C-alpha cells in the first residue's frame, strides 16, 4: 500500500480508533509481566473479595487473586484465541472459497454441500464433542469454534473469485498457458486480500465472544488461566457484593470486541465498501 492510501486510512476514524484499541491489547499481552501488579494465579485468601484499591486496581476475587493482573494476562488468551481461530478459518475457508469460485459448477456444488453440513452442526455440539474427545483446554475449544465458522470465509471468497476469474487479465494469463494453480495463487488470491483482512477483523470478535460463552458454560480455559469469560462467570453470583469481578472483564470484552469491530468497519469503508457478509 502506498503513502496516499496509508494517509487515507489514518483519516478514517473507525480504522484509527480500532487500530489503537487493538494495539493496546497487543501491548498488554506482550508486556503483561510489567503492566500487571501481581502474578495472575497468586492466591491470597486473606485479601479475598477486596474492592478496587491502589493495591488492587480492579479488586480481588474469592481466592484473593488480583483481577487487574488477571485481565492483563488475559489479553494473551484473547489474542491466542483470535490467532488460532483465524489461522484455521483462513486456511480452510479461503482455500475452499478460491476453489469453489474458480472452478464453479461441480466443485462449487460440492463445496456448498460441505458448507451446508457445517452450518447444520450446531456449534455447541461440535465444541462439546471436540472438547471431550481431545480433552478440556482452551486450545481445543478454539479449534472447535474455528471448525464451525470457516464457512463464512468460503462464501465471501468464492463470490469474489467468481467476479475476478472472468476478468481480461486472467483470461490473458490463461491464454499464456499459466497453470490454474499459478493463476489462483498469483493473480486471484492477492486480489482477495482486502476481503480476507476484513473477514479476519470481523470473525475475531465473534470468536472471542463464542469462547467466553463456552467459558460461561464450563468449557474452555482450565484453572488458573485468566480467561475473561471464566472470570465473568465466577463474578456473576457475587454481583451484589463484589460487582467489580464481573464488570471489569465484561467491559474488557466489550472494549476488545468493539475495537475489532470498528477496525473492521474502517477497513471495509476503505478497502471494499461493497463488502457483503
Amino acid at each position, binding site marked *: 500500500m502506498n503513502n496516499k492510501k496509508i494517509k487515507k486510512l489514518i483519516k478514517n476514524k473507525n480504522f484509527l480508533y480500532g487500530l489503537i484499541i487493538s494495539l493496546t491489547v497487543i501491548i498488554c499481552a506482550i508486556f503483561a509481566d510489567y503492566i500487571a501488579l501481581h502474578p495472575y494465579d497468586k492466591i491470597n485468601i486473606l485479601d479475598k473479595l477486596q474492592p478496587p484499591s491502589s493495591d488492587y486496581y480492579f479488586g480481588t476475587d474469592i481466592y484473593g487473586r488480583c483481577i487487574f493482573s488477571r485481565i492483563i494476562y488475559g489479553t494473551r488468551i484473547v489474542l491466542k484465541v483470535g490467532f488460532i481461530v483465524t489461522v484455521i478459518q483462513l486456511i480452510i475457508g479461503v482455500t475452499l472459497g478460491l476453489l469453489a469460485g474458480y472452478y464453479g459448477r461441480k466443485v462449487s456444488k460440492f463445496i456448498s454441500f460441505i458448507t451446508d453440513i457445517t452450518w447444520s452442526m450446531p456449534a455447541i455440539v461440535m465444541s462439546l*464433542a471436540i472438547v471431550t474427545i481431545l480433552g478440556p483446554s482452551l486450545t481445543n475449544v478454539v479449534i472447535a469454534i474455528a471448525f464451525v465458522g470457516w464457512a463464512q470465509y468460503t462464501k465471501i471468497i468464492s463470490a469474489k473469485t467468481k467476479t475476478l476469474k472472468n476478468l481480461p487479465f486472467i483470461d490473458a494469463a490463461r491464454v499464456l498457458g499459466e497453470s490454474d494453480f499459478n493463476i489462483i495463487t498469483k493473480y486471484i488470491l492477492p486480489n482477495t486480500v482486502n476481503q480476507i483482512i476484513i473477514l479476519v477483523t470481523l470473525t475475531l*470478535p465473534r470468536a472471542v465472544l463464542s469462547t467466553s460463552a463456552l467459558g460461561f458454560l464450563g468449557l474452555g480455559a482450565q484453572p488458573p488461566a485468566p480467561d475473561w469469560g471464566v472470570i465473568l462467570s465466577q463474578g456473576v453470583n457475587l454481583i451484589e457484593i463484589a460487582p467489580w469481578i464481573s464488570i471489569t472483564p465484561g467491559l474488557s470484552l466489550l472494549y476488545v470486541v468493539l475495537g475489532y469491530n470498528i477496525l473492521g468497519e474502517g477497513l471495509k469503508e476503505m478497502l471494499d465498501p461493497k463488502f457483503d457478509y
Partner: protein
Amino acid sequence: MIFLLEYIIRRLFIGVLVLLTVSILLFAIMHSMPGDPIQLIAGDRADPQKILELRIKFGLDKPLYIQYFKWLLNALRGDFGLSILASQPVSVLIMSRLKYTLMLSGIAVLLQYILAIPIALLAAFKKNSLLDKFTVYSTIILWSTPQFWLGILLILLFAVKIPIFPISGYSGPLSLVLPVATILLTNMASGIRITRSEIVDILNEKYVITAYAKGLKEKVILIKHVLRNALIPTTVMFFLSIPWIIGGSVIVEKIFAYPGMGYLLWTSITKQDYPVVQGIVLIIALLTVVSNTLGDVVVAYLDPRVRKNMEGK
C-alpha cells in the same frame, strides 16, 4: 416458474444427502466421546448386571453401524428412539419443547429482521447524522456484549430492582420479554448494518438521485425500489438465521430457566443422551436445508438478476 421448481427439487435432493451425512457424522462423533451415559443413569454403585440390561434396552450393545441403521430406519418412520436419560420417546420430548423454542427464538429472529428495516431506513436516510452514528455504535456495542452478561443485567434491572417481569421460566407472555430482548439486542447489529449499507448504496445510484429531485411521485417509486432491494440481504440473513434458532439460545435458556430445545440439546450432549442429540440435530439440519432453499427462492423472486443467474446454472 418451471425451472424454479426444478431448482427446488434439486436443492432438496442435495438436502437429503446433507441430512444423511450430518446424521452419520454426528453419530460417529457422539460415540467417540469418552464417558458412558448408561453409567450415568445407573448411578455410582450400580450392579454390573443392571448396567448390561440397560445397555441392551437402548441398543448400545450392538456394533455401531447396526445401531446407526436401526436408528435411520426408525427415524424414517418418525420414531427417534428413547431418551437414555428420561426413558421417554425422543419425539415426545422434542415436541413438548418445540413450541417454547418457537416462541422464544422464533419471535426473536422475526423481530430482529422486521425491526432492522425501519431502523436501517431511518439511519440510512440520515446518514452520518447523530442518529445514524448512535444507531450504528449502539448496535455494535450491544453485539459486542456477551449474551449471558446482558441477560443477567436485564434480570437485575427489570426483574429484580424494578420488578416488571418474571425472572425466569415460562408463565405467560411476559416471561418472554427479557429473554427475547437478550437475544434480539445482541443479534440486531448485523441485520441493521447490512440493510443500512445496502440502502445507502442504492440511494447513491444516479437514477435514484434524479428521481428524488423530480418530486413526490418519483419518491414513491424510489421508496418501493429501495425497499425491495433492501429486503434482499435482510431476507438472506433471515433465512440463514433460522437454523440457529435452536442451538443459539442455549445460554439464554439456561439463564432464564426457559424450557426450550436449546438447553435440552446442551444437557443431552453433556450427558451423552445420543438419541436426543441425533433427533435435535436432525431437525436443525432439516431447518438448514429448508431455509436455505426457501431463502434462495425468495431472493430470486425479489431480484431478477439472481433469477437469471439461477437459470444459468
